[in-house]
């Protein structure tokens, strides 16, 4: 009996990987079809200079973080949960805690077959809820966005360059990280303030500095970790 169950388990997992890959492949094609289709329909190519600057600022950083996220969360989510959660997103603030709460309530852990099942159920239900909430919110987005665009003050406030959304976001995010890891933060933070103050031209290439500062931060963290200071 136990041998049969072991065989079934491996079959289920094999099937999960097969199905997971197929769904993920289609999800990826759909995601790429959006900018691609937009370009073809409107006959427009990206503005290359800002595109490349954006890629340099965003891609290395987020690819690294994305890979580490898979490293970290996959054991908590099981295989079915991982395939699903990495298509639907919002892992840290939603899918991982949803799966964990479901498993904790049942008193099972993620490595067990029961954990795998419950985690998948939790992630699936969570994805359905978010998708429905977003559809409802979409009905309100258009009137709110029109309201913003019709007011000069609000346009200035929501401007991504000289407006206030980004400072508000990084003030709130920054304080959490500074409180949590101030030892890693001090040197990169001071370094950046000094560089920006002394060479104002660096504001224009701020995005390019991000991967550089990430590497510096990791080196500082490793040094402190090895010295057992963190």
């Amino acid at each position: 009996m136990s041998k049969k169950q072991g065989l079934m388990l491996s079959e289920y997992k094999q099937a999960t990987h097969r199905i997971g890959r197929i769904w993920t492949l289609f999800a990826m094609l759909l995601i790429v079809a959006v900018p691609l289709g937009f370009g073809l329909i409107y006959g427009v190519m990206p503005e290359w200079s800002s595109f490349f600057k954006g890629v340099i600022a965003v891609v290395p950083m987020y690819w690294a973080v994305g890979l580490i996220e898979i490293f970290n969360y996959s054991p908590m989510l099981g295989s079915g949960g991982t395939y699903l959660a990495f298509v639907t997103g919002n892992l840290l603030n939603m899918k991982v805690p949803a799966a964990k709460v479901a498993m904790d309530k049942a008193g099972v852990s993620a490595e067990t077959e029961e954990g795998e099942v419950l985690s998948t159920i939790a992630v699936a239900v969570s994805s359905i809820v978010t998708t429905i909430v977003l559809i409802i919110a979409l009905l309100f987005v258009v009137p709110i966005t029109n309201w913003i665009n019709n007011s000069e003050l609000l346009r200035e406030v929501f401007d991504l360059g000289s407006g206030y959304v980004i400072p508000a976001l990084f003030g709130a995010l920054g304080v959490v990280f500074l409180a949590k890891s101030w030892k890693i933060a001090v040197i990169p933070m001071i370094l950046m303030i000094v560089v920006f103050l002394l060479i104002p031209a660096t504001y224009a290439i701020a995005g390019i500095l991000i991967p550089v500062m990430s590497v510096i931060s990791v080196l500082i963290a490793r040094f402190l970790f090895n010295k057992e200071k963190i």
Partner: protein
Amino acid sequence: MDFKSGAFLYIMGGIIALFVLTQSVVFLVRAVRRGKAIGLDVKVMKKAAISSATFSIVPSVPIALSMIALAATMGAAFSWIRLSVIGSMSYEIFAAGQVAAAADISKEALGTMPINVFAGAMWVMTLGIIIGPIFNIFGLKRYQKKIQEIGEKNPRWSKILIDALFMGIIAVMGGQFIAKGIAAFGNLAAQQIIMNGQAQLLTLVTGAVLMAVFGLVIKATKAKWLENFALPVSMVGAIAMSVVYHGWF
């Protein structure tokens, strides 16, 4: 019609929402069947589904708020798409901002982002999140065993590593507004570079203070549910205060 609210993006949004719903249902049904096959109590599975549904409503609100914040620049349809698949509220706003800043469109009205810059921003935001699916297709199966091994070997370092990577963003973005604010208050740089610098610095500080207050309240009252609201409410509060600061300078 404005290209950001054209039929194409809404149709794609609809297809993607339907795709996500279908995939979720397929995985849900498979898991429930498997649960029954291994003798898992249906009540336990039901409980897991209900607890996940009720838990997920609260964190969905900030995601919806981010969609509204992002829609001001990227339009409602694309924001909806981006937050429906592999979405992350801080990432999306940041990525769009990087392209907008690189294109130097800060002085222009938001509704008039040139179509080629918009196209570039769409690509950057898409490419930034594509690594997850790529890895899952080619590597997840092989690596799942190894992942657990490494995590068990040094779970503390892997957490610190993520924090340090994020610190790169915080140092550059936070440092930028602090330096800009200092320069603006001290009149140390050209006016167009430090535009709105004082108000931006005050907004940054307000966001930080509100977030810290949330942290203290959560710690004192043990109200864990507040955690999901801390970031969006601090952000919205700071943005609301920025209207006041903007009037000052």
